[in-house]
């Protein structure tokens, strides 16, 4: 008998009676779990457009009866949304770019070179992942409030600098791979480069290319998909971060901080305090993560593929 050639995509085969029950089970499971993840987001969006009447009306569910832009305009007006947006964009973008580059270098150094003291510093990198950031909160604060390097700066008469109200602390931490979750990025990138055959490096070195040049012209482009993932994660986590933004940018408003601002204003100025401040907080949150959602949609495929191919094997 002549063999039948099948041109249909694989998932059509899954509808074969033998498989359909399993497929149905999987689909139901996936849809159910997706519902758990997505419902809170949908609810948030719907509450954002609800007026007080809608909120107090128990028959309204998910679809507002009298939709309104009031909440959004209040956040725009009282929260200083656009200013915070610009600041956030500036900080997150610069931090994400710096962190990706620096962590890539450091990860490569840990993966591909043999030198004394490597193990110690790698353990230190792991240590920065494990230590809860709150442990260092106060020390970070005092460190950057009265900034000096072992008393050297005041020795040369520059005097204690106070960089706390600027972007300097975030940039400094990014430049030295000590920013938010940077230990994790170093770990992942090291893992990626460990999977790259050492022969590739050696070939370049034997041919007289020095390691720095070899890194930038061969290894760096090779790690591109991985680096996109790191960049996206770094950007997103920086964008919603409340820890460092509360610590460093007290006068320069970034997006996560408009949450507090909006809460304070709504409890003061607008009657029906509790519910209103919840509504304002919620609106602020949706408006903070909305740009991030667009960003995720654009990069989603590359992000997930980059991590999938990172070759993390323990």
């Amino acid at each position, binding site marked *: 008998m002549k063999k039948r050639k099948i041109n249909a995509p694989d998932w059509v085969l899954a509808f074969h009676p033998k498989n359909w029950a399993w497929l149905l089970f999987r689909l139901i499971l996936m849809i159910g779990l997706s519902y*758990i993840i997505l419902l809170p987001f949908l609810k948030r969006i719907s509450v954002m457009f609800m007026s007080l009447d809608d909120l107090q009306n128990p028959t309204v569910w998910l679809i507002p009866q009298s939709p309104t832009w009031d909440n959004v305009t209040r956040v725009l007006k009282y929260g200083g949304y656009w200013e915070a947006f610009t600041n956030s964009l500036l900080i997150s973008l610069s931090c994400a770019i710096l962190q990706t580059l620096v962590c890539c*270098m450091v990860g490569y150094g840990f993966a591909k*070179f043999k030198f004394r003291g490597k193990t110690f510093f790698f353990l230190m990198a792991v240590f920065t992942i494990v230590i*809860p950031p709150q442990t260092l909160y106060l020390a970070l604060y005092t*460190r950057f409030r009265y900034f000096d390097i072992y008393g050297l700066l005041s020795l040369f008469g520059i005097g204690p600098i106070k960089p706390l109200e600027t972007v300097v602390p975030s940039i400094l931490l990014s430049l030295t791979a000590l920013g938010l979750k940077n230990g994790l990025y170093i770990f992942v990138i090291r893992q990626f480069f460990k999977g790259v055959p050492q022969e590739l490096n050696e070939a370049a070195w034997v041919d007289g290319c020095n390691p720095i040049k070899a890194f930038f012209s061969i290894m760096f482009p090779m790690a591109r998909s991985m680096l996109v993932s790191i960049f996206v994660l770094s950007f997103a986590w920086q964008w919603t971060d409340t820890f460092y933004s509360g610590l460093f940018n007290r006068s320069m408003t970034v997006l996560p901080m408009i949450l507090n601002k909006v809460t304070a204003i709504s409890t003061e100025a607008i009657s029906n305090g509790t519910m209103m401040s919840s509504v304002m*907080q919620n609106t602020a949150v949706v408006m903070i993560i909305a740009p991030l959602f667009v960003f995720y949609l654009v990069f989603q495929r590359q992000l997930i593929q980059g991590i999938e191919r990172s070759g993390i094997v323990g």
Partner: protein
Amino acid sequence: MIRKAEKKKTSLIRKNGRYGWFFISPFVIGLVLLYFPIIFNSFRFSFNQLSVGQDGYALKFVGLESYRYALFKDPDFVRNTLSLIGTLLVQSPAILIFSLFIAVVLNQQMPGRGIFRAIFFLPVIMATGVVLKADMMNAMLESLNGSAGIDTGVSTVTAGGFDISNIQSMLERMMIPTGMVEYLVALVNNIYSVVNYAGVPIILFLSGLQGISPAVYESARVEGANAWESFWKITVPLLSPIIFVNAIYVIIDGFTRSNNPIMLLIDDVAFAKNNYSGSSAMAWLYFGVVLIILGLVSLLCYRFTFYQERD
């Protein structure tokens, strides 16, 4: 000739070793100039009374006083730490099993696979930092005023949404051990957190699954193994290094998440009660606990991890 080339290569590797320092130099500089002083200071604060002034801060040595405060005087610290460990003990294995299961399911062909994958990863990007904080503030407002805040759906998808006490009593009547039933109930109550924290583990498991060659499964099937057997005899051993990494990830993630009760307590003691040294002491005690637990888990996992090639 070949020997010579080989020799040249090894000496090159040795010579290029010092370039390693160049590549990790940003991190080393940061450690020495920024991180070590910060760590040292944080440690010092836990032994001293700290008072912040306009142009600096003053320290007064108090010895182990703040550790005593954290362990014996503060009503919440020990209790919250223990209950957090309990929660994570329930949650972490569940997250691991759940994410492995989801990864296996997602690894098979099905319509909408890419969309589901994107949805599962969504919380990693979106449900962090400020979103968690808002959830918390909302819950706080509710409990403070005794009135309902707004419904953001979080409570709908956790226990409040559906009643499981019937199922619980049914399971108990089926002679299933009470401990197990309680574990299952705790899991169902926590399904929202489990799903939300599983994003990264799912992706890592997926990457591991795609690294297993189909030929292995093929030959197992020829030898007569069914899907169940090949899952336990092929998938699990080959994935065990990733299970290890994920276990560590899940534990660290759980312990350092900004919305966990200890983090809030540490913040609260420092800024609401102005007890900076007490808060530093708590933070270090907590770090010690985390380190011990990580050590135990690593030891345990390492024994059961199968490496195809150890280096």
